[in-house]
């Protein structure tokens, strides 16, 4: 796809110093001058919150919810007693909390304003939609510019709208679960999201409906100093099945950008939700996301989480296993390159008998990159037949790369079983030597070895994503040896 040149405003940093990071970032590294009709200004106050709520024409209870959340956010300390001090570099007064051209997403790409449409075309979204998606929502800064669901899927009663529409048009349905999985005060950033949330998807899949193709959301940050706070709630009714994919990119600005989403999943009896993320934010984005699901009886929630971009990602997808035989799974891949800290992990809270959870996390640290695994597994008293398996493997490529592992596992009683294993290693020299001896360059050999390291996880991604993932890793690995 040829990049448009006419109104290319904020000049994307051309060739960056680091050829490794540079190549990968180019795909999302561009931005356009967009005239925003709605702008909450810079900084955060009660007025900001009131402004957002009023332009969205929200019900009074939502405004009240937002204002309460703002108070909570302001009263909570930064979690730097366990998290990285880099969080202190976020200047909440310099962030723009709401930017949009309107609150109503378009149903066809033709209606989408040209500059925004160009962005998504360049990212390949309309093309993917035609090829293999059941529905797409494309969020540009604060609001979805486009949102559509295939007619056959809509006819089955599936609701796929953005959060503004969801709360306005289906309050009885979403209010019941909204902020119930992740309460406002869960952490400082979930409180912030609750105060200023905008965008994100609201999905309801009726009883027994199995959505064959994935629903996709694409989150795009275009403006500098911007904070994106989408809020997603997915409800799969009894026996329903749905796969949701999200992708994210942003241009690389010299100032930092904040992305702080809240994602809540509810899988009712026997339902299955699969949530796939490929995060490829630019290296100036603070990506601080709270993701959690509740799995009722015999339900299954699976998070597939891939973090390649951002300056700092802190994300620990969780599952509360609330019903008997519920199952939770987190598959996580993280790649940390120079200037990046991927602080990711998983949280499994067992709250019923015979619940099982599985966590497989693999991280790769390249150059001066740092990857961290943090996990919580909690099996409280008087449960029986609960099982957890956790594996985390870290690969260190260069001598300045860093990796940390901080799991926390609590088990009560003698009727449950947990096991945790972690390993840290470097790429096997003999393997590299063997491949070089067969004519591969060291770089090619390294790429192959790293792809082999994550291969069993990458295979769980939908085909299009796993191909993309392999390509991204090849690019990230280029020039990283030596």
């Amino acid at each position: 796809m040829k990049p448009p040149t006419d109104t290319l405003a904020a000049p994307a940093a051309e060739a960056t110093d680091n050829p490794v990071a540079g190549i990968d970032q180019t795909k999302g590294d561009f931005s356009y001058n967009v005239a925003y009709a709605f702008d909450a200004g810079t900084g955060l106050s009660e007025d900001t919150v009131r402004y957002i709520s009023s332009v969205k024409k929200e019900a009074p209870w939502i405004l009240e919810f937002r204002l309460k959340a703002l108070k909570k956010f302001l009263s909570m300390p930064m979690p730097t007693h366990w998290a990285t001090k880099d969080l202190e570099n976020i200047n909440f007064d310099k962030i723009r909390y709401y930017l949009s051209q309107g609150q109503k997403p378009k149903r066809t790409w033709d209606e989408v304003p040209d500059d925004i449409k160009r962005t998504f075309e360049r990212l390949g979204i309309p093309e993917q939609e035609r090829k293999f998606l059941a529905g797409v929502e494309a969020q540009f800064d604060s609001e979805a510019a486009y949102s559509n669901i295939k007619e056959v899927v809509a006819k089955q009663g599936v609701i796929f709208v953005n959060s503004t529409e969801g709360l306005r048009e289906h309050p009885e349905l979403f209010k019941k679960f909204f902020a119930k999985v992740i309460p406002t005060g869960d952490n400082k950033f979930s409180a912030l999201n609750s105060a200023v949330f905008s965008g994100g998807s609201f999905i309801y899949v009726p009883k027994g409906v199995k959505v064959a193709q994935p629903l996709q959301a694409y989150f795009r940050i275009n403006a500098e100093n911007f904070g994106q706070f989408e809020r997603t709630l997915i409800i799969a009714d009894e026996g329903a099945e749905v796969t949701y994919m999200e992708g994210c990119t942003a241009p690389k600005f010299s100032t930092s950008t904040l992305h702080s989403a809240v994602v809540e999943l509810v899988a009712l009896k026997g339902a299955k939700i699969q949530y796939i993320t490929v995060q490829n934010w630019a290296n100036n984005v603070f990506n601080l996301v709270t993701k959690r699901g509740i799995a009722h009886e015999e339900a299954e929630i699976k998070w597939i989480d891939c973090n390649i971009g951002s300056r700092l990602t802190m994300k620990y997808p969780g599952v509360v296993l609330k019903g008997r035989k519920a199952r939770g799974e987190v598959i996580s891949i993280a790649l940390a390159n120079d200037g990046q800290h991927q602080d990711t992990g998983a949280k499994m809270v067992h709250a019923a008998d015979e619940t099982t959870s599985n966590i497989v996390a693999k991280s790769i640290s390249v150059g001066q990159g740092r990857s961290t695994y943090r996990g919580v597994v909690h099996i409280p008293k008087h449960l029986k037949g609960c099982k957890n398996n956790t594996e985390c493997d870290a690969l260190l490529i260069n001598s300045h790369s860093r990796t940390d592992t901080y799991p926390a596992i609590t088990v009560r009683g003698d009727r449950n079983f947990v096991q945790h294993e972690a390993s840290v290693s470097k790429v096997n020299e003999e393997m590299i030597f063997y491949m070089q001896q067969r004519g591969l360059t060291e770089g090619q050999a390294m790429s192959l070895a790293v792809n082999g390291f994550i291969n069993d996880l990458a295979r769980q991604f939908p085909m299009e994503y796993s191909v993309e993932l392999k390509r991204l890793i090849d690019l990230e690995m280029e020039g990283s040896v030596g």
Partner: protein
Amino acid sequence: MSLAFSSAMSLTGSFTADVFAAHLASLPPLPDWWLERKRAAYARFAALPMPTRTDEAWRFSTITSLTLDGFSLPLPSPALPPATIGLPATAELAFVNGFLAAAVPLAAELRARGVIVDTLQHAFHHHEALIREYLLKQTARLGSAKFSALHEAFLTDGAFIYVPRGVELDQPIAVFHHSLTANGAAFPHTLIVAEDLARVTVLEYFGSSDDSQAQLAVGATDLYASHGAQITYVGKQDWSHRALSFHAHANVVRRDARIQSLNLHLGARQARHEALSQLQAPGAFSEMLALTVARENQEFDQRTLQLHQAPNTKSDLLYKNALLDEARTIFSGLIVVDQDAQKTDAYQSNRNLMLSEAAEASSLPGLEIQANDVRCTHGATSSRIDPEQEFYLQSRGIAKSAADELLTFGFFEEVLSRLTNEDLHDALRTLIQTKFKK
């Protein structure tokens, strides 16, 4: 605010400035540098806050019961409870309430070769240079800075063991610490220094005579293995079941040296044990072992740090907990590999055997790796006795209770069998089995 007031009150608990002054006045003449250090330590202790619920270093620990109130410094006691290590010893030192109560001196031949088994009180005057070089030189890195300062401020006496270059001791040296007074505070201390190529085994025992006495124990054990030295250490903690115990254990391992330490945790109501291994030069190897039998409402809180500071070092940690009744255990381990510590081989494993419905085990096995050419792995499991193994034994006609006992002993055996000294192995096996049946 009353809250602020009460927390200010509990900063020193029973160990007020007056109590400290009285403690200093009660001591025999001591070198000025040591008195100076004690005063500085007291100031640190008094200034540092008590752990709080949000302290990462105290995650999962019960904070509310960490009180320093209601304790006093006990007087010497004429009683000396019988205690034996079940093995012939080269030398023995027994402390009661922190004062030397009995000693079996070293053979003259070993003394002539420069081996020292002495009290700290005596060593302050006769081996001052060595004491000054090694005593309490390990900073508390695992959360107990306040309690380590308290230990230093009130440390009265302890054991000093020194093995000079090339001397190898075949039989162990035994150190006993008894705490025999209700509400008494004990500050046991053992310092072991093995010079180049020296070899020594030390067994240390901590105990009370009465399991119903509330007590406080704030102890420290420091081991230094110089180039090519080998130290085997076994510590057995069997304080009163109403005691509150803090213990700091440090291994400092130099080139090609090896320290094997095994800590048995049996006593106390709440016991915090912080163990550090510092691998300072190539070829250093530290093996850190622990066995815990947690019963009733006991809480064992074990925090470990394996610090790899040089290339080609190795550490291997295995901590096993058997949990009965409503007991709680916490294991928090961290392997830190410095940037230039290439070729590190580090292992960390925590196994919890859940033997009751209400027991609770928490594991925090952590890694912080900054070198790329390393092999670091850790594992943690919590589970009950394997039903298949149980079934196998039952199918061979062994009653379920006997089968469970056998399997539990098998669980312990993996740790005990790491001891290369067979006599020591047998003695400990008997001890732990007796204790478990109780």
